[in-house]
């Protein structure tokens, strides 16, 4: 994938040096937007699909931005600036105060099936034509989601591509019982919203493949980090925290 370099690397550094997160895979949350709580994020390990429990899926969603002249760089710039705006209602993405940049951590408030789930993502990679988010322990998925834009036959396409496994047995069951459809609908909505931002009303194309049908029983222990359960526990214990504050 070609990219224009806005931050030329120092001598002897690879050309991609400035685009990768520099810290370790442990999530660090620096400054939070006002009123946003860090729950299930700080101190969690980042995950590749290799550390997940469920079947491995590769899902690619793309939308051709036909009839308009916009470069891949402009599309990604717009997407980074407006990332939460294109999400379906009910799910919140709190953009890091310094924007979508390598190493930054964003807080997520999701509502899969109506259940509140507090987690986050880290920006693993970001250049002018793509950015990749990495999930932490406890998230629904172990893996990466890459948002990119590219030119094909004089048309710019925007794409969301994920390589994921459900993180633990509870999530894997949920995915098989409708979660995959909900996930697919989520990204179709997101790409449709992005296209409508450019006044392009078109169908999102999808390409979904199960790369590995086997589950990884060695990762069933991930259940201890399940952000959905932890969020529910946090919510249920809110009265206790309120009482403690009153004393």
């Amino acid at each position, binding site marked *: *994938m070609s*990219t224009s370099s806005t931050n030329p690397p120092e001598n002897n*550094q*690879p*050309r*991609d*040096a400035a*685009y*990768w*997160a*520099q*810290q*370790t*895979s442990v999530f660090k949350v620096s400054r939070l937007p006002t009123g946003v709580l860090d729950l299930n994020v700080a101190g969690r*390990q*980042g*995950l*590749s*699909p*290799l*550390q997940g429990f469920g079947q*491995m899926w*590769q899902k690619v969603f793309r939308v051709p931005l036909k009839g308009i002249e916009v470069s891949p760089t402009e599309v990604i710039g717009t997407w980074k600036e407006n990332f939460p705006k294109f999400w379906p209602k009910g799910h919140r993405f709190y953009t890091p105060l310094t924007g979508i940049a390598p190493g930054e951590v964003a807080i997520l408030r999701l509502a899969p099936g109506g259940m509140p789930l507090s987690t986050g993502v880290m920006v*693993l*990679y970001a*250049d002018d034509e*793509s950015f*990749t988010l*990495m999930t932490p322990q406890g998230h629904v998925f172990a893996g*990466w989601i*890459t948002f*990119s834009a590219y030119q094909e036959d004089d048309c710019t396409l925007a794409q969301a*591509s994920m*390589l994921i496994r459900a993180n633990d047995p509870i999530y894997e069951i949920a995915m098989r019982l409708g979660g995959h459809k909900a996930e697919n609908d989520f990204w179709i909505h997101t790409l449709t919203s992005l296209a409508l931002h450019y006044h392009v009303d078109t169908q999102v194309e999808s390409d979904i493949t199960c*790369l*590995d049908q086997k589950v990884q029983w060695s990762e069933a222990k991930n259940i201890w980090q399940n952000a959905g359960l932890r969020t529910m526990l946090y919510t249920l214990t809110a009265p206790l925290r309120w009482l403690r504050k009153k004393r």
Partner: protein
Amino acid sequence: IILNFSGLDYMNSSGIGLIITLLIRVNRQKQHLLAFGLSEHYRHIFEITRLDDAIKIYLSEDEALAAA
């Protein structure tokens, strides 16, 4: 299968995606994926992406071949 990363000076996140899909195919064949020649920068990428959990990294081709 041994991957030679010597001289690599550019890899974006699609590159690590390709490595994962290669790893899945290799594991399906009950084989192993090894790597050598990674610079400090790419070793860091393997660590942060947790690829080093599944792909053993060696300093030289000889070491990788000896371990294969």
